[in-house]
């Protein structure tokens, strides 16, 4: 009957199904495709007994900048952390999100009060804006940025914004905004495996492999 209701129905129905299928298919495609690529064996003598431990260590050591880089980038690292933690709190703490995850995976955990979620979402939004401003004003960062960076930013920003707008009934009826929120999040899920957003999954592998390789060669990681 109503276009708005149909939009929400579409978002909760076929769009969600399609987005999840693309997400799972894309992640396995990318992951297997990269892991199965031909690599030349390292013939040098291993400097350590268990190089893979270096890989595991690198996953954690790369979470904070090295001392020599800190004066230049520590504040942006902090902003990035605010964004990532805020986003994680919103995704994993809001009860409607948990119910969706439970519906798909069967996993469930207690939710957080809406005040906490709103604060986290606001912090994530503001930090995202700051990071975008940094990207477009920093001469080097701007040079190495491409469509993927900006489009991925937009796809992360939009669900956060529409989610807050839906909660506070800003700019439209709740069901319209909820439908837009879900559709934008589904677009994000479908785009994730094929973009830089794939680091959500790949960062473990890229850091681990890099750490293991350099650890084997005796580099300090």
């Amino acid at each position, binding site marked *: 009957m109503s276009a708005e209701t149909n939009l929400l129905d579409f978002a909760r129905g076929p769009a969600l199904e399609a987005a999840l299928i693309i997400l799972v298919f894309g992640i396995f495609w990318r992951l297997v495709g990269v892991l199965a690529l031909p690599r*030349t064996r390292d013939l040098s003598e291993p400097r350590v007994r268990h190089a893979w431990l270096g890989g595991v260590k690198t996953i954690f050591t790369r979470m904070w900048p090295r001392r020599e880089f800190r004066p230049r980038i520590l504040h942006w690292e902090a902003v990035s952390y605010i964004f990532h933690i805020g986003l994680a709190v919103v995704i994993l703490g809001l009860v409607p999100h948990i119910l969706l995850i439970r519906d798909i995976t069967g996993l469930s955990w207690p*939710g957080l009060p809406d*005040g906490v979620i709103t604060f986290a979402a606001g912090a994530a939004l503001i930090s995202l804006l700051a990071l975008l401003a940094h990207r477009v004003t920093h001469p080097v960062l701007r040079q190495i940025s491409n469509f993927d960076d900006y489009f991925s930013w937009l796809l992360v920003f939009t669900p956060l914004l529409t989610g807050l707008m839906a909660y506070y009934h800003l700019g439209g009826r709740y069901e319209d905004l909820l439908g837009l929120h879900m559709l934008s999040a589904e677009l994000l899920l479908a785009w994730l495996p094929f973009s830089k957003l794939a680091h959500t999954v790949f960062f473990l592998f890229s850091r681990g492999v890099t750490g293991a390789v350099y650890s084997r060669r005796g580099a300090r990681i």
Partner: protein
Amino acid sequence: MGELEETVLDAFRRGGLSRRAFLKFCAATASLLALPPAAATAMAETLARTPRPTVIYLSYQECTACLESMTRSFSPTIEHLIFNNISLAFNDTLQAAAGEAAEAARKEAMRQAWGKYILIVDGAVPMGAGGAYCVAAGQSAVDDLRHAAQGAAAIIAVGTCAAFGGIPYAAPNPTGAVPVSEVIRDRPVINVSGCPPIPEVMTGVVVYYLSFGMPALDHQGRPLAFYGNSIHDRCYRRPFYDEGRFAHTFDDEGARNGWCLYELGCKGPVTYNACATLKWNQGTSFPIQSGHGCLGCSEPDFWDKGGFYRPLSAATGHWPRGEVLGAAALGGVVVGAGMAALARSHQKTSAAKTAKEAGSPPPKEDPHER
């Protein structure tokens, strides 16, 4: 019938009620409609000179719950409405007459009040099989409605079946049922949705129309006075939603403490109605207060939203998630492995081609590649 010249105030007086009672009635109704105090005066002035209109109440694909609900209205009561505000010329459930006598009475009432009567429609209209699924007195519902609508001053679709198709319209809709607004497209239809609608909403809309004419409607054709807010926003359990306190089952601690029913499938956030404010049975309670989530019965297609007990944020489709996503993962593995094999093959071909161009023998298989 034959009472078109008698005003609403005249009817009050004839019933032995004073002008004071009439004014109190107007004030109560204006309050019900959330109108400003001045509107009660305007309502009294208008009703005092308004002839009691003829009302034709037609029932099609419905279960009579809407009429059952309307008869339980407490302000104004259905008796009050019938005896003082309107002249109910035809309602096949309430009237004593039946068969040809009832049909003759209806035709006569419509003839006398042609162009002036209020047409209330209850139930969806089946269009399938040439309208044969609902026929009374040899006339299909759709033909009956088209004819009656021609002489109506206003058309009110009561109940979700009449407003949006309701249960007859639900998939697979075997009778081809449609809402009134899909049959009558050339004029506005006031949709008073709900399964059933709140009785005071139905009677209140009639009184509003008599007093002020067409009410302000939302994008679904519903009076904003009653359908302007969502159940969720007016729900007394809303603070628990904000605090993240939810009932997980119908008999857990959360349910006993009256916490939010969102997890149990409450559709309050996307349902617009006055249940949380007017409530039912003289303001006694409403479904959420009784411990059950809102079904969203005043919204279009509420029957086909994926299940009453599925949370609003959950998927509506009943597809086998494990199998489908497992197949997607397997497909990804196969395509990824295939792409990697192609890359290996391409690498070897390129190496051989480079060696040939350089005039050297093709490279041997790299024993160290893995």
